[in-house]
């Protein structure tokens, strides 16, 4: 029993705390639910080496070589050809919508060039919105495809034969050619930040009204529940609009995240603002203490936190268990990354889709003109493939000029 520390006093405090914990059901949820949920999410749902990524195949001429390539790619387990034999334009749309992660293009003269040993080229466009997504799949690509062709030609024995018979695989990292992680994380964080702050703030605001007893007063005056809810939510809508603006401005100023369209318009119409609305609904069911509302808000935030992880470990890398949940949420929270779910032309992908007139290898394939392209056209050097860069000066190794399309 000292003046500064007494076990009796400490014990009294501990006892009181334990009793309070026992009476608080939310604590139990936090104690059991949170670890379990986190374990499930992080343990099962996240896969740092995603397999079975959807891919589209653009091959005007289907021959044994294209089949060999497709089979070899599928056997790696990284690619799943969900849209085989589509047109180049269709493939572009699929990629822009996020329906496929890869577009594999084999020019119409692919088979002929293979047989001739005349610099066969194939193009793989990877959705690099999330720079990490493509890396695993792409890294195995070159050797797999080359070996497939060699098998098909029966030239395995002379591996490493003449250079000009060797397959060249061009890889385009679309939408984010430099693989800048900030482009992925910064817009994604927008959703997380809004959920964190808005859900908390609105839930708290309403609970506080009940806690302080002012709700009783409000209800005894001629205010309808709808008016009260709206009155609670709308100001936070304004707050979240400011938050969106801050994030967007910072994204542009600090991280140079590319934008398409008007910044003001985007911040005003951002679907994330709806997050602000879930708060009051939440605390409506939770008439407990302020802390409860906070806890409940935390519970609601889980999926969002999960997705925050998903920012580092992209959606497609989540195993199927998590993908459903993740995709649902991401459609809400990350329109920029999944334009298929929401507005178009505002996200990275929209930006990537912008240089429409760029001449790509697929243009040739699609137009069936590949055969007319002279051998010196430099397809194999990638010169005909226009950049899809986001920033001036960030252009990859391609010449901006295409000899065939001016």
């Amino acid at each position, binding site marked *: 029993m000292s003046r500064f520390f007494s076990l009796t006093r400490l014990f009294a405090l501990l006892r009181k705390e334990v009793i309070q914990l026992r009476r608080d059901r939310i604590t139990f949820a936090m104690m059991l639910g949170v670890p379990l949920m986190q374990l499930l999410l992080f343990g099962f749902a996240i896969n740092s080496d995603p397999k079975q990524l959807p891919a589209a195949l653009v091959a005007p001429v289907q021959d044994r070589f294209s089949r060999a390539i497709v089979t070899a790619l599928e056997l790696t387990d990284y690619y799943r050809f969900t849209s085989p034999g589509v047109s180049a334009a269709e493939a572009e749309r699929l990629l822009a919508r996020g329906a496929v992660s890869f577009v594999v293009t084999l020019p119409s003269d692919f088979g002929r060039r293979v047989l001739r040993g005349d610099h066969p080229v194939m193009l793989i466009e990877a959705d690099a919105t999330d720079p990490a997504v493509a890396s695993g799949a792409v890294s195995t690509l070159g050797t797999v495809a080359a070996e497939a062709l060699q098998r098909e030609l029966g030239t395995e024995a002379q591996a490493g034969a003449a250079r000009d018979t060797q397959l060249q695989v061009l890889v385009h990292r679309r939408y984010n050619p430099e693989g800048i992680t900030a482009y992925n994380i910064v817009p994604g964080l927008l959703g997380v930040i809004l959920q964190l702050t808005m859900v908390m703030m609105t839930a708290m605001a309403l609970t506080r009204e009940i806690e*302080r*007893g*002012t709700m*009783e*007063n*409000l*209800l*005894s*005056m*001629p*205010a309808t529940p709808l008016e009260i809810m709206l009155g609670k939510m709308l100001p936070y809508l304004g707050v979240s609009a400011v938050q969106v603006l801050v994030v967007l401005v910072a994204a542009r100023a600090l991280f140079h995240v590319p934008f398409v369209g008007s910044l003001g318009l985007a911040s005003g119409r951002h679907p994330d603002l709806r997050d602000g609305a879930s708060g009051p609904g939440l605390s409506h069911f939770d008439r407990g203490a302020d802390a409860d509302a906070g806890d409940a808000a935390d519970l609601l935030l889980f999926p969002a936190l999960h997705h925050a992880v998903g920012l580092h470990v992209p959606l497609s890398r989540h195993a199927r268990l998590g993908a459903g949940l993740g995709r649902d949420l991401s459609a809400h929270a990350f329109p920029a990354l999944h334009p298929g779910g929401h507005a178009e032309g505002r996200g990275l992908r929209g930006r990537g889709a912008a240089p429409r007139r760029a001449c790509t290898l697929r243009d040739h394939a699609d137009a069936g003109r590949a055969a007319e392209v002279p051998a010196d056209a430099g397809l194999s050097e990638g010169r005909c493939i226009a950049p899809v860069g986001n920033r001036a000066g960030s252009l990859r190794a391609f010449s901006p000029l295409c000899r065939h399309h001016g």
Partner: protein
Amino acid sequence: MTEEPAIAVTGLVKIFGNRRVVDGVSLRVERGEIAGFLGPNGSGKTTTIRMMCGLLTPDAGEGRVLGFDIRRQGRRIKREVGYMTQRFSFYEDLTIEENLSFVAGLYGLTPARRIVRDTLEDLGLSGRRHQLAGSLSGGWKQRLALAACIMHRPRLLMLDEPTAGVDPLARRMFWDEIHARSAEGLTVLVSTHYMDEAERCHRINYIANGRLIAAGRVADVVAGAGLTTVVLEGPNTAEAARRLKGRPGVEQVASFGTTLHVVGRDAAALRQSAEAVARETGTTMHPAETMLEDVFIQLMAASEDSLR
């Protein structure tokens, strides 16, 4: 329509869980009357008031408040009633003026600015209009709450323990205000624990364990209880109190400074016991008027007995 009483409810029942918090309460309050609503803590006063102003739907019973059905016309009732909650329930982080403007807006009062200014003057709040409600003392908070309740000129005021924690002077001023409004035709229903406040009401209604057990004018209620009171006075009242307990006819013994109030229903037995104790302890005994408080303690004890 105008002859209809301000409040006429019958058989109100409210059940929370398996507890009948309000159990068949019928109440009648005439227009322009100040009705006291009395009863111990947890007796169902607040719940009854909430049912009458449309905040709660009764599980049984019906009635009309200001001519509106309490089940179907809650919105109309809210418009015409000023309800002052037990706990201060205005915004502590708003100033007095901001609070009043907010209320004026909710009731759609126009011109809001002038009505707020007049209300501030009326209740002597003008000097503090820019003070945050949270920084006000109990008396001023209560004044603000009252101002907010009467600003929309309600026809009925329901005050739920309005003077809890308020000093005597502020309480006096508060009641003067209530009486002034009542004289102008406002009907007031006020719940309270204080007996002096109950005696300021035209009529009182006593509720215990969810049941209305006495109603009427103060004098009638006191007379109706049929109690006799004697006072013992002297230096040794503590000893006298100890000896009085359990004697025939003695039901309540309460010390008030140097005097002892002894109350019972059986006047003869009470007098006999009191005289005996007075002789033993050397105190003097004289008859006294029964007070409302004595009646209530009697009623409370009786209703508790009936529960057991």
